[in-house]
C-alpha cells in the first residue's frame, strides 16, 4: 500500500482543485457565516457570560466557531464531492482506474482536512481581531483541528456513499452534523447546562473535538485534552474502519 502513490496524489489534487475552483462558495461563504455568528452572539452575550475566569465570551466563542467551521467544511467537502460524482455519473472515472480503497479514502479525507483547515484559518484570521486570544498549548490546537477535520471528512465519505440523493445528504447534514456541532459547546461550556444535558453531551464526540481544541487556546477545558484525544481517536478509527469497508465492498458504488 503506497499512500503517496501517483494515484492518491492525483485524486487528492483533483479534490483540492475542485473546491479551489469554487472558492467563493467553499471558502469565503463559510468564513462570512462564522463572522456573522460572532457579531450576533458576541454582541448579545458579551459581558453577560463568563465561561472561564478572565476570558471574555467573544474570546471563548472564537475557537468554537473556528472548530465548527473546520468540522462542517471538512464534512461538506468529501460528502458533496461524492454525491455530485454519483449523481452526475462521473464517479466512474474514480472507479475504473486501479485506485485502492485506502487511496480513495485518504485522498478524499486529506482534501477535506485541507479545506477544513483553510476555512478554519480564514475564520480565525477574521475573528481574532475582535478579542484577545492566547495560545496556551498550540499543539493541541493543531492535533484537534486535524483530527476533527479528518473525522468529519471520513463521515462525509460515509454519508456521500450512503446517500442516493441530495436531500438524503442534506438530512444527514441538518439532522446529525449540525445539531451535534451546535450541541457540542461551540457557544457555551457544558458546565452551564443542567446535569442531564451535561451527561448527554458526553455522548457527543463533537464535544470532545471542540473542547480539546479550545484547551489549546486557554489551557482550560471541560474535560482533560488527553481524555478527549483518546475518545476522538477511537471515534476516528471506528469511522475509518466503516468507510474503508464500504469502499472495499463497493457498497452503493459497485452495484
Amino acid at each position, binding site marked *: 500500500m503506497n499512500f503517496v502513490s501517483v494515484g492518491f496524489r492525483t485524486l487528492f489534487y483533483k479534490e483540492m482543485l475542485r473546491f479551489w475552483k469554487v472558492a467563493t462558495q467553499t471558502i469565503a461563504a463559510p468564513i462570512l457565516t462564522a463572522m456573522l455568528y460572532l457579531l450576533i452572539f458576541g454582541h448579545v452575550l458579551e459581558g453577560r457570560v463568563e465561561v472561564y475566569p478572565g476570558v471574555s465570551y467573544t474570546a471563548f466563542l472564537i475557537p468554537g466557531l473556528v472548530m465548527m467551521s473546520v468540522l462542517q467544511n471538512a464534512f461538506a467537502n468529501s460528502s458533496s464531492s461524492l454525491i455530485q460524482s454519483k449523481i452526475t455519473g462521473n464517479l*466512474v472515472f474514480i472507479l*475504473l482506474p486501479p485506485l485502492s480503497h485506502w487511496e480513495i479514502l485518504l485522498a478524499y479525507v486529506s482534501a477535506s482536512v485541507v479545506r477544513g483547515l483553510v476555512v478554519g484559518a480564514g475564520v480565525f484570521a477574521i475573528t481574532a481581531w475582535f478579542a484577545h486570544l492566547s495560545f496556551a498549548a498550540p499543539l493541541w490546537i493543531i492535533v484537534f483541528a486535524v483530527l476533527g477535520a479528518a473525522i468529519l471528512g471520513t463521515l462525509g465519505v460515509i454519508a456521500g456513499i450512503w446517500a442516493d440523493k441530495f436531500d438524503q445528504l442534506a438530512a444527514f447534514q441538518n439532522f446529525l452534523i449540525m445539531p451535534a456541532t451546535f450541541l457540542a459547546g461551540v457557544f457555551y461550556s457544558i458546565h452551564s447546562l443542567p446535569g442531564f444535558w451535561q451527561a448527554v453531551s458526553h455522548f457527543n464526540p463533537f464535544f470532545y473535538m471542540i473542547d480539546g481544541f479550545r484547551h489549546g487556546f486557554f489551557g482550560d477545558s471541560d474535560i482533560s485534552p488527553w481524555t478527549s484525544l483518546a475518545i476522538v481517536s477511537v471515534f476516528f478509527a471506528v469511522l475509518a474502519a466503516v468507510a474503508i469497508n464500504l469502499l472495499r465492498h463497493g457498497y452503493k458504488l*459497485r452495484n
Partner: protein
Amino acid sequence: MTAIQINSVEKSYKGFKALKGVSLNIEQGEFFGLLGPNGAGKTTLISTIAGLIRPDVGSVKIHGHDVVTDFRNARKNLGVVPQELVFDPFFTVRETLRLQSGYYGIKNNDAWIDEIMHNLDLTNKADVNMRALSGGMKRRVLVAQALVHKPPVIVLDEPTAGVDVELRQTLWKFISRLNREGHTVVLTTHYLEEAEAMCQRVAMLKLGEVVALDSMQGLLRRVSGSQLIVHLKEGTLPEGLRPLVSHDEHGNGKGNRYSLRINAPGEVEAILARLRESGAVVDEMQMQQADLEDIFLQIMGDAKTGKGAL
C-alpha cells in the same frame, strides 16, 4: 494469450437475472463485437469486466488478472468508454485527461495526451471546460480518457450512440489503428453495420445468455441465401410467397414493398412466375446479400422461440 476470460458469470438485480452464466474468451488483438437488443445484459457484462459491478457467481480475468481479487493489475490493462455521456464539470479537457492519467499512476503524460487529442480532433478544445463542449465532443473526451494509459484491452460501450458521422469516422480510424498495433477491442453497438465492418468475432446476447458466438464470416455463412426485394406496382403478394417475407413495408404509402428470403438465385424466376400468375406487376426489384442485421434478427427470433444455437 487470452485478453479477457469470462467464466460462468451470473448477476441478478432484485430477483431479475441480468446474466445467466456467461462464458467467453476474447483473445489478444481481437476486434470483438458484443451484440444484443436492449436488456440483453451487454452493459452488465461490460460493467462486470470493468469492475463496476461484482458478479454473484463466476469470474472475469483481464490478461490473467482477476477483476475482483487482483483488480489493480486487471484495471491497468483495461480502458473503458462508458455508455453514458458523463463528465466532470469542474475541469477542462486537458485537466480531465491529466487527472485520468494520474489515477492510473502515470505522470508527465502530455505527449500521449496530445497525440490522443490530435487523433480525436480535440486539440483546439484542450483548454475548454467540459461543460462548454457539445455531446459529440464530450464523447470524444470519454474515448480519450479510456486511452490515456495505453491499455492493451479497450472496451467501447456504444461509443457512437447519438454522434455524428465525422466522429464515427475519426473514432473508427483511430481505434482500427490501435487494433492493428495489437490492442484488443471489445465493442457493443446497436449499429450492426459498424460491427460487421469492424469486428472479427461476435457474441450475441439475449436475456443474459450468449445465443451466438462465432467469427463474423461464420455468422454470415450461417444465414444462407439472400434477400430479394420487390416493389409491386399493382396487386399484392400471393399467399404462397408470404412465408418468405422477412420485412414487409406494405402500407407505407409508396406501394407494396417486400423483402423475400431466398436460398439460391434460381429461385428468383419461380417467385416472379408466381407474382405474374397472381396478376401482380413488379415495379422494381433488387437482390441483397444477407448481412449481420438479418443474422441478428434471425438469431434473436430463434432465441425467443428457444431455437438459439451456439
